[in-house]
């Protein structure tokens, strides 16, 4: 064992195998994420969720675009695709249509899904393609050095907004609901149990589902914005989070500063025919399918 240092008192017994190791690509651990980054917690919840639902792991597919969040596809031991920047959703749409048996999930960052990939999100939600989109929102482009992105709050400091961001950010649950998602929820990485439940719900739900995960990126966002290290940001979540399933869209705006709350919850859970269901309906109606 490679542990060196002070006495034995209180030392935790060394474990050989983590209970989720079979869902992880063990040989790639430890992962590349910074100490205090929330991505590992988000991924743990996902690993728990795919194991918790009654869908064989063989039928689960995970896709990511590019970014720190995009790395998730490379660490989970199910069929996975690390696609080009912003294109995980069209890739997922193709997979689902070609093989409707699969349970297809896209796990990616705010920049990947809503800047370069924004258009794909809108249209997959509009069509109600039966895929799940999980966005880790850390309010910046973590991987490339902490630039401003489409969810950076007004006044926030990033490497490209030295005077404070003066762009209005997206309110992601509002955007997802407005474009047609049938299930919309938001949690922070501190809400592990609720997040896991929501993921299970999304995996089992027919239609386009969306989960936003508020996550610390101490390197790109926490430090310049006085949220501090990962631990301090989680303390901030504990203090400021309010669970409110029936929140108004305005209340879901995120400021990530001062006394403003972080409203989390299960906001939308509804039904609408999916892309494939409607296609089948039309084909039958016109006599192309019996």
């Amino acid at each position: 064992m490679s542990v060196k240092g002070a006495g034995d008192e209180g030392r935790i017994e060394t474990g050989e195998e983590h209970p989720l190791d079979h869902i992880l690509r063990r040989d790639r651990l430890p992962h590349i994420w910074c100490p205090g980054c929330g991505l590992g917690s988000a991924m743990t919840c996902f690993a728990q969720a795919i194991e918790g639902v009654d869908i064989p792991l063989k039928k689960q597919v995970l896709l990511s675009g590019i970014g720190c969040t995009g790395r998730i596809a490379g660490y989970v031991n199910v069929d996975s695709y690390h696609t080009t920047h912003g294109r995980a959703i069209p890739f997922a749409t193709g997979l689902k249509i070609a093989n409707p048996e699969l349970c297809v999930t896209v796990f990616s960052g705010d920049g990947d899904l809503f800047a370069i990939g924004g258009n794909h999100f809108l249209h997959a939600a509009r069509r109600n393609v039966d895929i799940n989109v999980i966005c880790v929102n850390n309010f910046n482009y973590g991987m490339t050095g902490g630039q401003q992105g489409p969810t950076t709050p007004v006044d926030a400091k990033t490497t490209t907004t030295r005077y404070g961001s003066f762009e209005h950010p997206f309110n992601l649950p509002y955007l997802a609901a407005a474009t047609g998602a049938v299930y919309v929820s938001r949690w922070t990485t501190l809400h592990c149990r609720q997040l896991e439940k929501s993921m299970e719900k999304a995996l089992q739900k027919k239609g386009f589902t969306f989960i936003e995960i508020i996550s610390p990126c101490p390197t790109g966002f926490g430090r310049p914005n006085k949220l501090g290290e990962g631990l301090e940001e989680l303390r901030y979540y504990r203090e400021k989070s309010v669970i409110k399933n029936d929140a108004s869209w305005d209340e879901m705006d995120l400021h990530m500063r001062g006394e403003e709350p972080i409203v989390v919850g299960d906001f939308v859970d509804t039904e609408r025919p999916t892309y494939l269901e409607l296609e089948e309906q039309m084909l039958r109606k016109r006599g192309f399918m019996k």
Partner: protein
Amino acid sequence: MKYWRRPLDKDEIKTPKGHIYLIPDRCKGCGFCIEFCPKGVLEESKEINKKGYHLPKIADGKEDDCINCNFCMLICPEFAIYTEEGE
């Protein structure tokens, strides 16, 4: 724990006990498990792993306090800490 009234099923309901394990070389010393353990079982040790991160340890007098709630496992971003049901 003190009760203002002794619960009728106190003898039947057993608080679960957990046994904690750590994979030391995965830990990055973020402190999440220490801060958010509901029973305050963990604290930072002086011990470091091969990358120089301070590992969690079991706090003095808390050896029997883990209730196997699993939260340290869920919140740990490194797949480094977990628990199993103890006796």
